[in-house]
Each structure stands twice: as C-alpha cells, then as structure tokens.
C-alpha cells in the first residue's frame, strides 16, 4: 500500500508539474485585424501566470496610461529599428508600449519598445528593449535580482535609475542620455543598490553615479564615472576616456578611441558595435554571455520577407516567404 501511495503521489506531482508548465500564447494587435486582444491593459488583466503575450507590429502604442504587469508572464515584441538592419521583419512596424510598471516576480519582457519602464519586483528580466524614456528599478519597493540586458536605452533622463535594487545584472546595453543639461547622469544608482555592469556602451555626456558595482568590459565614450558621489566600484577591462582612466587606469582599463566603434554605420544600433581590430579584449556589446542582438529581435521565429498573391482560388493562395529562427 505504501508503495502504491508513493507511485500515486509521484504521478500527481508529475501531472502538477505538467500543468504548471503549460502556458497559453495570445496575440495582441491593435491594427484592426482579428486578434486575442487589442490593448496591453486588457491582455494583462485577462491572462494568468505562465502565459505569453505576443505584441505585434503596429504604428499605434498599445497603451497610453501606465500598465501594471502584476502576473508572472512573458511579453514578446517585434524588436526595434527594424529597417536599419538586414533580415529583421517583413513588417517594419514595431510593438510600442507606453509606460509600464512591473510589480510581479518572474516576468520576462523581450523585444519591446517602451516609453518608460519601472521594475518593482524581484527576478525580472528586461531584454532587447528600446527604452526611449526612463528605466527605473526599485523606485516603489526594494528589489533584487533584476536583469537588464541587450537593451538600447536612449532618453532625456538617466538611462538607468536604480533606486533600490541589489544585485542588478546590467549587461550588453547601449546607454545614452540625450539631455544637454550639465551634470545629467547616464546611469544613476543610489547607495542601497548594487550589481554587475558588464559589456555595455555608455555614450555621451555626462557621467554615471554608481554604488557597489563590478564594472567590467564596458566602453565609455565621452562619459565617465562620477567619482565624487560614487562608492564601492571595482572597475577593470573597460575602454574609457581619460577622465575615467585617471581614476581606474591601474585595473587594465584602456584608452578609448572613436575608431573602435563603427560610428559611420547607417544602422542606429550597429554603429556601436566594436570593430574587429578592438575585439580581442572582450569589451563591448557583442561579448559576454548575452551578446547584443541587432534590432532587439526577440528569441521567437520571425518572418522577414512576405509577398502574398492578391488572389487565390480553390488551388490555394501563393506566398513567397522567408523566415528565420531566433535565439
């Protein structure tokens, strides 16, 4: 009898695991065609933990007011700057979100264009996103284990504002603060934050305020670390400007030169790739565990060429189609 109970319990456990692993995928499309949802708020309100939302190509944002992501879900988008790079998507419209606030643990956001992103939960991954407003982590509650990777962050205020986030992993991102205000921060952390800052490109004025970080394999172009207000930094193997090297040159940090980036490239993000002559040391976006992905294409398959016939009949409808798997 005991053996039977063991087997039965094991069976129930397996069934339970299978059920919990089952996720349903839903489309979000606001262009007027048939889809599961037409706006982000309704989609998030309707799904359950474990589900996946695929936000599709459109010229219209999927939300205006802030949407709270309060479930353990995954949201995939289309990527961004789709016309700039080869073989991205046949439809070059992108999935544009207004402001969002992630309040649930275990959320993955990938391939989205977001105006303002707030992360206020543990174990959140934001990847391959175009942030053109602000990115704030832990502004409403202390959080930990937040990962921001492979993102293109360019706005008028600090690209990353970590209010209270311990062990943030910030890797393979492009960060540019476009503000012309003197003293504008590219990254701004508070003393209660900490984390890894690896393989990023920090671009433009002015500086980064960092606390409790390991700073490695990054490229600093016309930007440095605010050494007056920053605390507890271990910096090594970074390409950087002179102002940076004055403070950290002893730790294998190397002088930056504009010739190491492909700044003349047409592509808005490919121009920040490290040119081959400078790749031996492993600094820059395309190194590390999560190399930057051009246009932020998410890890789902993509149709990058589509030409459908205008008419069909009982014999079918012909389409010439080109597709890529993505990882």
């Amino acid at each position, binding site marked *: 009898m005991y053996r039977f109970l063991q087997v039965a319990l094991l069976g129930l456990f397996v069934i339970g695991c299978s059920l919990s692993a089952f996720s349903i995928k839903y489309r979000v499309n606001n262009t007027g065609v048939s889809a599961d949802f037409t706006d982000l708020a309704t989609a998030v309100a309707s799904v359950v933990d474990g589900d996946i939302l695929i936000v599709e190509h459109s010229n219209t944002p999927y939300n205006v007011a802030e949407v709270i992501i309060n479930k353990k879900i995954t949201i995939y988008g289309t990527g961004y700057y789709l016309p700039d790079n080869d073989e991205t998507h046949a439809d070059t419209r992108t999935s544009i979100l207004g402001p969002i606030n992630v309040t649930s643990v275990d959320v993955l956001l990938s391939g989205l264009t977001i105006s303002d992103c707030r992360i206020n939960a543990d174990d959140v991954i934001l990847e391959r996103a175009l942030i053109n407003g602000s990115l704030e982590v832990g502004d409403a509650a202390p959080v930990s284990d937040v990962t921001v990777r492979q993102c293109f962050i360019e706005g008028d205020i600090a690209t990353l504002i970590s209010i209270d986030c311990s062990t943030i992993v910030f890797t393979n991102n492009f960060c540019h603060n476009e503000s012309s205000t003197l003293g504008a921060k590219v990254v701004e952390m508070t003393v209660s934050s900490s984390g890894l800052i690896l393989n990023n490109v920090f671009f433009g004025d002015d500086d980064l305020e960092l606390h*409790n970080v390991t700073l490695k394999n990054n490229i600093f172009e016309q930007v440095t670390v605010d050494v007056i207000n920053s605390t507890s930094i271990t910096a090594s193997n970074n390409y950087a400007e002179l102002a940076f090297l004055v403070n950290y040159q002893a730790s294998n940090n190397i002088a930056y030169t504009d010739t190491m980036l492909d700044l003349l490239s047409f592509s808005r993000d490919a121009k920040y790739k490290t040119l081959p002559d400078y790749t031996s040391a492993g600094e820059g976006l395309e190194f590390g565990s999560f190399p930057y992905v051009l246009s932020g294409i998410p890890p789902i398959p*993509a149709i990058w060429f589509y030409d459908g016939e205008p008419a069909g009949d009982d014999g079918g409808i012909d389409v010439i*189609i080109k597709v890529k798997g993505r990882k």
Partner: protein
Amino acid sequence: MMKKLFPFLCFLGLALYSEAADLLVNLNPTSGADFNNAQSAIDAANTGDIIYLQALPMSTLFNPADANYGNLVVNKQITIVGHGYFLETAGLGNYEESFTPVPIIGIQFVSGSQGATLRNAIALEVEILTSNITLESDYINGLRIVSGANTAVTGCYIESQLAEAPAVVLESSLSGHVFSYSFIGYIGTPSEGAIILSAPNTNGAEFNHCNFANGNLYLGSNFVHNCIIFEGQIGWLQEGALNNNLFTIDPIVTLVDPLGNPQDGSAVNNDPTNQLVLATEIFAANGEGDLQWELQVTSPALNAGDDGQNIGMYTSINSYRPSGLNEDVPIFIELNYLDLITTEIVLPIDFVVFSPSGNEISLIQWTVIPDDLFVGVQDYTTFIPSDLVHGFLSIDVDALPNAGVIAINAIDNAGLESGFQFIPFQKDNTPILTPNLQSFEFFYNTDPGIGNGNFIDIEQSTNFEGAITFPTLITGGPTVGQNTLFVRVTDANSGVGTTYYHEFQFLANGFNPDCCDIDGDGFIGSSDFLNFLQFFSQQISGCENGDFNLDGIVDTGDLLIFLTFYGTSV
C-alpha cells in the same frame, strides 16, 4: 565535510573555521551546512561542541515562513546558538531585514545536559529537568523549570502568548535559579489577568534587573530586586522579598514594611526603596518589541538600583541587548544573490553586515566548498569600512565547478568574526536551443487562437526561404470575395512568431481572369474598366458580363476582383 576542509583552510591561512566542533545546521538542503536537522546535530555532537542553528535568507528558493527546527531533546553539555530575534525592529538602519530566524518549537534539557547553554535562539517552549542550564539572550514563549537547580537566565525575552499560560513557571524545589537582565511578560493587555510568573514552590530564586509586564507575579519565597513591574501585581508572597523595584500600579502587597525592618521575614518584609511611579515617567516609548522598554532620560529608574545601576533590564553593565544580539561579533543582516548564474561573473552577492559592538567591519572573506574541494579564484569585493556596511562581492566563474557552496563571513577590526553564511550556486548550463523552424500555422479571417489553426510543416532548419501555397479548401477556408490570410511560424522550441496577414480575393471555382479583359486586347486596363461599369448594379450572371464572383449580380465584390487584376496582361 568540515574535517576534510579544515586542513585546506589552515594551509592557506584562512581561519574561517575556528573549531572543528562547530556544527552548522540549516534547513535548506543545498546550504552546505553540516546538518539539515537540529536533533541530528545534537545526537552527533560531543561535549563542548557548539551547534549553530542558521537563519534562512529570504532570497533562497526555500520558503522560510513555516520553517522550524522542531522539538529537541538535549542530553549533552553543548551550546546551541541561534540567529537572534526581533531583527526587523532592532534599529539596524534602513535596510530591509532579509533573514528569517528559524524557531525551535520546543527544547527540553534532560539528564546529561548539565552545563548546556541555549543562546540567541527563538524557542517557543523551554523545559528544564536538570541543573546548571544557561539561557542567554533567547526569545522564549514559555519557560518551565521542572527540576534541577542553578538555572541561569540572562538577557532573555520571555513572553507568554496566552493569559492562562505563565511566561515562567518554577516548579523545582531546588534553589539557585537566577534571572537577570531579562524581560518576563504577557503579550496581551494587563486587564486579562495573566499570571506571568508562577513560583510558589521554589525557594531562593533571584530576579535581578528584570522587567515584568502585563500580568501578576505569584512570587512565593523568592527575591525580586532592581526590577520594573509594569502593570502587574504581587500574589503568594510568602518568604520572598521585594527591594528597589518600580511599580506602575498598586501591587496589593505592602511595599514598605510598616515595621520599618526590611527583609526581616515578615509577611510583608519589603524594602522601603520600592516605589510606585507612572509608567510614562519610566519608559521612552519610542520603539516596539524589546525597544519599548528602554528608559527615558529622566526616568526614575536611572541609577536607582541597589548596585548603582539602572533599575530594570536596560543597564549600563551587562545590559539586556535588543534582539539577542549580545555577541560582539558582526552579524549579516542582509544577503542577496542570484540563485542561478548566467554571466561570466559567478555570483553577485550583495551584503549588509552590522557590528553590534560598534567595531568597524574591515574584511569580508569567502571560500568555495564544492564537494570538499577548496578553490580560490579572483574576486571583486567593495565596501566602505564601518560598523554598518553595505557591500558587494562578485566572483569570476572560470575556476569554479558547475555547482557548489560559497561560505562568506565578516571580520571587524578587532578580529572578531561573524558566523558563516552559506550561498549555494549553480551555473546555468542550459544550452541555448537551436531555433529550428517547424511549421507555418495559418488561418483565414478569424484567429482561432495560437495553436488552433492549420499547419504546414517545413524542414527543420534555422532558415526557410521559398514559395508556399496555402490551401483554401479547408474548414474555415475563404469565401468568394475579399479575405485575409494570416500566417505565423513556429519552431521546435515552442516558439511562435508574430502573425502576418494579407488581404486577397478568393475567386469562385472556375473563374478565369481572362473575363476581366472585356475588350479582348490581352490587357486589363481602363477600357475594360469602362466596359465593366456598364454592367455595374445589374442582376446578370456570367463571368463575361462582369459577374466575376458568379453570384448573379454585378457589385462591389466583382469590382474588387476586377481591381485585383487591373494592369495585368492575360
């Protein structure tokens, strides 16, 4: 494991482990501790060993909410050390407490445990059946001394949760029990009539520099001095004595011996130094938990004891210390780390360490314990030395095994070391799957939901380029006229891409585009369009008459078909 590890550490001069007789207990099976069960540690211990009952960090996969170390029986002269209590109110700065101390449900000291100590622990019930037991800086819900002599209770916070269950029961008829610098009280309101001390059978127990709160004392023949009795009265005072105490309500017994002979053996043989004062005059009332009993700067308790110290548990020498942090050694009050390592840097570890002694935390040291193998690798440690440090440690992954445990501790500038914190790590070796394409999913006009459409399988590869003819003669297929074809692609990893669509004209069976070349010149152009308009709105049949969709009327449906082929040669 510790015996094998010890020579490595000594060889490297890293005295992380001061004694092989320190046994670590942690409920998390991946913690790397010596035991996951406290009773097993007790059973395995030898006389003089120290057993550390570790707290659970909130960041582990383990849910510490209902965790406990169970019921324990101690029959050896050992020391059991916990992690403190009331940590969230201990005034350790603005850092969120991330450790959950794990309670002992019950602990019983039996024959053989003479000389044993319980320190810094949370124990819901403590029962003593032998002599010479020491309770030091513990949080206890109920203490019962059944037999034995010479129990020493110091710096403890003993708090009954039930009005009918005294916080302390003294049943033993043997003497020598001493309570000092401790709190004994009831968590509820005084009006519930709780008994917080029941000692009618014991002679000669001493209560010195204690706080009693929210209940009555059945004192028997025991001695209470230098104590604050908050909202409590005295009963069963037999041969006992009350000297140099502060009362906040009338204790019923006569505080001052009417004969003027203190401690003369009379029924009310009390010292005239006892006082009745207002509670608002005693306490600072600026905290919660044990901090609520701190004295205000004008308190009548200040320096009023018979030894010149403050009356009550908070004194200048040997004082009760909040949260049981009566060790001078540093303590980790926050530890955050990633459960699964995905970058080249193995582990970002965020820590907050506090030094109760006020010494400056000067060094964080760590080692790796992967199956008894010591590995030293490059690390990056940053913090500003202070008595409360927030720092960060990250470790290069290259030399590390796929999984293991990191032991970390802190040292202050007096050389005092914290206890160990154990951090399990695991590299994420999950391969990134090749995104082999699997099929096209398609449907017409209305999305049946992802996974519910029609499928055309394609050869598994990372790329596909070619012409696909999507069938139309299917359930849910197009109807004559304008339709929308939706297509999305799936891969073998359950990935589904965005959905593409295009509008098209579905032509009736047998329809020949040559019909649109009404003037027969081999090209479908403007002259054909003018001819088509002549048929428009007429109820006539036949392709040659502009009824391209063969529905018996020439209307916009036919116009859309015409426009589909407009500008083409036939």
